[in-house]
């Protein structure tokens, strides 16, 4: 098994010993661990916690969907047993977030996950079409980070960079006001399950789980604010996350069977726990990743056996004998800047991208956008509210946000 700080690791996921399933359940005291210190935690430890919470919730959600669609007791039984472990893991992971980390601070970290995960995947995605889909989504999450950063400063007077720690830049991307589409517009061509490389499937499913979790988080916590500006901004960006879930899930091959998808989910969990384990700098949390990785290896192998039993196919034939994990949370600022320069003005239609100057007047999103933006756009209003404040820059970070605001206003003027 890997040791920390290695560049990439190749596993034999179908053979690597795991923790027996009957030894995986944990007591209340074992599963709820002390949270990290929000002032001390490394930004990428926090992103790992957020990502793996989403990955576990995604696996849990799919497991229920599968269970509702099968009448095979052996499969339902294994689903129930592995799902119970998934939800215990999810508790351990999500409960690592401390109570003194505000919803908005956590929101900033959610967007950091989205940016540095999507950017890295895009840089390493073997399928050019899937890569362009990732680049397109990247610039939208990049803009969300900026809008929420303004809200954090406005509501809580906090510097978002205390969360981001200089790893992820705060700057406007493709303006959020232009992320709102006729729902059909977001649908993409899907990969072909026999031809797509396993890495493309793992990238797509990981991002999908991340976006789904982000959607859930914004929809759950948006109404907890009394401030109307915050309530509206969470509503606006929450809907974009719905579009992102539609967008990424449309990449999946619909002919993948439920069993194949279940194995894919388990492999995706192994993939993600492996990089968490390999790159975690907090020794206490690294041990959690190590334990959960070995739980997931067991789940993966059990589900691989089910695939062989009920579909007559070895999981290795679908996903390969080995699994190479290269991902790590790292800075992608240069890459994001480059994509921003080249693709900020792209718009999506008919599973393709074109410059907004070339988009036809028949584009259905024109109508939808006019409708939802008719009475004002919360993601623009927060910029205006902040621009109207006459406070001189006092704290580190004020100048960065002011620079981003200036750029956002120029982008709006340009149209």
């Amino acid at each position: 098994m890997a040791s920390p700080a290695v560049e990439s690791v190749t596993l034999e996921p179908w053979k690597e010993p795991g923790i027996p399933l009957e030894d995986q359940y944990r007591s209340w005291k074992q599963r709820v661990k002390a949270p990290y210190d929000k002032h001390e935690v490394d930004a990428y430890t926090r992103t790992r916690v957020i990502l793996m919470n989403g990955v576990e919730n995604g696996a849990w959600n799919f497991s229920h969907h599968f269970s509702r669609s099968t009448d095979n007791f052996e499969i339902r039984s294994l689903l129930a047993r592995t799902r119970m472990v998934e939800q215990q893991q999810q508790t351990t992971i999500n409960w690592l977030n401390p109570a003194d980390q505000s919803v908005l601070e956590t929101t900033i970290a959610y967007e950091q996950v989205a940016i540095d995960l999507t950017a890295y995947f895009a840089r390493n995605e073997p399928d050019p079409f899937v890569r362009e889909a990732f680049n397109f989504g990247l610039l939208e999450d990049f803009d969300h980070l900026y809008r929420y950063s303004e809200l954090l400063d406005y509501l809580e007077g906090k510097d978002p960079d205390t969360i981001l720690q200089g790893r992820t830049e705060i700057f406007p991307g493709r303006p959020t006001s232009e992320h709102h589409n006729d729902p059909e517009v977001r649908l993409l061509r899907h990969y072909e399950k026999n031809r797509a490389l396993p890495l493309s499937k793992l990238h797509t499913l990981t991002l999908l789980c991340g976006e789904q979790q982000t959607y859930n988080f914004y929809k759950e916590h948006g109404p907890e604010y009394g401030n109307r500006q915050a309530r509206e901004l969470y509503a606006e960006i929450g809907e974009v996350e719905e579009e992102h879930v539609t967008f990424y899930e449309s990449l999946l091959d619909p002919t993948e069977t439920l069993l194949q998808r279940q194995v894919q989910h388990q492999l995706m969990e192994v993939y993600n726990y492996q990089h968490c384990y390999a790159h975690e700098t907090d020794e206490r949390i690294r041990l959690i990743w190590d334990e959960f990785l070995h739980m997931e290896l067991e789940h993966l192998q059990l589900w691989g056996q089910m695939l062989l039993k009920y579909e007559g196919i070895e999981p290795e034939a679908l996903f390969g004998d080995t699994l190479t994990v290269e991902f790590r949370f790292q800075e992608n600022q240069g890459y994001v800047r480059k994509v921003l320069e080249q693709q900020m003005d792209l718009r999506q239609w008919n599973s393709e991208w074109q410059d907004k100057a070339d988009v036809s007047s028949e584009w259905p999103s024109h109508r939808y956008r006019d409708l939802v933006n008719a009475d004002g756009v919360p993601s623009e209003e927060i910029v205006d509210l902040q621009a109207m404040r006459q406070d001189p820059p006092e704290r580190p970070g004020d100048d960065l946000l002011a620079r981003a605001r200036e750029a956002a206003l120029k982008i709006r003027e340009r149209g």
Partner: protein
Amino acid sequence: MHKAVLLDKLSEFLMVEQCGWQLYRVVQSRAQDAELRERYAEFGAETDRHRTILIELITQLGGDPDYISPTARVAQAKSEALLQSVLVCGPLSDKEMEANDLENVLLAETKDHADWHLLSELTEQLPKGKTRTALENAVSQVEPQEDEHLEWAASKLAALGLAALTTEAPPDPLRLERSVITPGVKVKQVHPAPVSLRSLLDAAKVPASEPAPASRTSAM
């Protein structure tokens, strides 16, 4: 002849063989009848060989065996749906499961047989040359075995069906009741205060502003 269409068809036929081989692996592993197990093993091995013959044929004709045509995808989805059928619908007795597996084999072999029959007919129409020779070679090796697979599956399934109808003990009539809910019977049997549909409707008609019935039983 449209060569591109032929290559698309061969991709589809290769997928049918691939999925057929998977089907034989699954049904062989759970068959209890000795003849079924033996035949599945034998036909599975032959199907595996047909796969190789098709790969060689596609290569000889200048195609790529890794190419998957649109109709191959449909064939794959249909074959996988055969296996999914028992995952979605349950429960079956062991004998019913065995018969269902054999019925899936019959359906798969019907398609497989039709594929090779088409290739045989095409071969007869082709002028002499490399393509005809390659097809003749493949068809001569495979078609007799496909005839045997189909005939055996049909006759064996009929035999299993007749036995189920006449000589074998019938399956447990309550096997479905163990996995589905039938409120009309079950609730009365297990619920200490069964609720009739009528009393539920009456209670639902009471305006929200008025006191609710003390209990469902009192409203009956």
